């Protein structure tokens, strides 16, 4: 029999807030986490701003052993460890654990393992100093590094895997954990994603000319999803994690329940019908949203809020059109729509999990966070949906059901439906 799956723990490392209380305050007040990067100016990047968490690296000593901390350099692993362990303790669990926990697994995603770690490898090898690399490089250069650090710290003994689906990674990780519990294979799954957009990854995106370049002197205004003046996205870094739990298991241990995952879908447009390596096929996106709604057992009119992918590129208007087609709703009869990327930029693989944490906090605390920098909504968007659906200041209202979707390179889509727990 299929199980109900609830969210019992949250953790976040976001450019506009590290830890749930700071992050909640930031998204309620429209606080930007986009900052000027002097190095990017020096390197002649077109985009010289980024979403960077104000992360206390030394603080990781409170999360992992001194031996593990010594030699840890990969920032993405650091972010992921902190978000995951915060979620774990938020769910009422202990970190110290001498036994293997066979009932709990971990699905944590990322796009690229640490390229700065790889730079060290390349430099040493090219300098004929391979003997100086030591034992700690491989574990941080491998894509499953973050998952290995998290599951090792907590002794997780169920399925432990790392997923990667570009910008759909975070949403997909949550969906994979959800499905695993729903089918009865695990009682709990620690899920999420992490991303450290380092100089080299940033540079590769910069060269594609898809980044915002006109607001380098006004970093907080640089990320402008759905606006007429949107000129590309701002890469961001960070991580978020959720503890997903079999409802019966959560109730039996008296856990606090933030929300329920009703269902979701992950698919691809197959890079056909308008889809390509970099653009989603409308048919795939629409099908993904429709399937999420159907599998969740809800009707489109029950959706109160869409947490969009909405990166601040030309794709924003197509995304809104796809939501409208999938929901068969338009004009003022449309859910609220917001994009967390207006505050923190686009943290690639981490986007889906950070935005999901934001979605759950909006359900928990009854508000819709503002879209900042939306002074000039794109008329091609407001032709489809009403202005009132695009709040620029916080709206305090009951939020029962949120649809959260992300779309990634490779024409991959992931959509989740979160609900207040009843």
């Amino acid at each position: 029999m299929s199980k109900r799956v609830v969210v019992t723990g949250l953790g976040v490392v976001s450019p506009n807030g590290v830890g749930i209380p700071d992050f909640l305050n930031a998204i309620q007040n429209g606080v930007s986490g986009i900052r000027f990067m002097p190095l990017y100016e020096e390197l002649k990047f077109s985009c010289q701003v980024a979403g960077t968490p104000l992360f206390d690296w030394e603080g990781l000593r409170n999360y992992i052993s001194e031996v593990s901390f010594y030699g840890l350099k990969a920032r993405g692993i650091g972010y992921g460890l902190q978000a995951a362990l915060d979620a774990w303790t938020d769910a009422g669990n202990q970190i110290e654990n001498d036994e293997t926990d066979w009932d709990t697994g971990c699905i944590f995603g990322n796009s690229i393992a640490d390229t700065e770690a790889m730079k060290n490898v390349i430099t040493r090898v090219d300098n004929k100093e391979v003997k100086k690399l030591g034992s700690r490089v491989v574990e941080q250069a491998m894509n499953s590094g973050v998952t290995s650090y998290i599951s090792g710290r907590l002794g997780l003994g169920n399925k432990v895997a790392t997923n990667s689906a570009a910008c759909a990674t975070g949403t997909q990780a949550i969906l994979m954990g959800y499905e695993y519990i729903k089918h009865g294979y695990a009682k709990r799954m620690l899920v999420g994603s992490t991303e450290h957009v380092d100089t080299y990854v940033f540079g590769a995106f910069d060269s594609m000319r898809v980044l915002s370049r006109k607001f380098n002197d006004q970093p907080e205004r640089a990320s402008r999803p759905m606006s007429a003046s949107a000129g590309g996205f701002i890469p961001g870094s960070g991580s978020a994690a959720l503890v997903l739990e079999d409802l019966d298991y959560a109730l039996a241990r008296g856990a606090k329940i933030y929300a329920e995952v009703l269902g979701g879908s992950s698919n691809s447009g197959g890079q056909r019908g308008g889809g390509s390596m970099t653009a989603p096929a409308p048919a795939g996106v629409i099908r993904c949203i429709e399937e999420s709604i159907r599998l969740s057992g809800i009707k489109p009119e029950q959706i109160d809020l869409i947490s969009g992918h909405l990166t601040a590129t030309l794709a924003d208007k197509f995304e809104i059109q796809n939501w409208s087609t999938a929901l068969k709703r338009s004009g003022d009869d449309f859910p609220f729509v917001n994009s967390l990327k207006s505050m923190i930029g686009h943290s690639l693989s981490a986007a889906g999990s950070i935005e999901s944490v934001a979605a759950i906090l909006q359900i928990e605390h009854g508000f819709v966070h503002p879209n900042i920098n939306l002074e000039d909504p794109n008329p091609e968007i407001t032709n489809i949906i009403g202005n009132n659906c695009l709040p620029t200041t916080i709206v305090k209202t009951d939020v029962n059901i949120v649809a959260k979707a992300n779309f990634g390179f490779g024409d991959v889509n992931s959509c989740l439906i979160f609900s207040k727990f009843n």
Partner: protein
Amino acid sequence: MTRQEILDELKKVLTPYTADKEALAKVDENTDLIKDLKINSANLVDIIIDAESKYNIEIDYDSADRMTNVGSCIDVISEKMGQGQV
């Protein structure tokens, strides 16, 4: 350097690799790196790299294989420093 001086320095090299600070405080020549200090065997290579850098020596693979307890570490380090057995 005397064996005691090398041992004192070696303790500093070992510090980041063991969580067992009590065992480290009581270190003597018979202390086994893996059994007594509970050092992860994968980290032995890092200890060798750190020792090479600290003493400005090169430790070849065969010598490294001998470095299983504190006494043998001191043997290898003092040999490579050109002091032979002290």
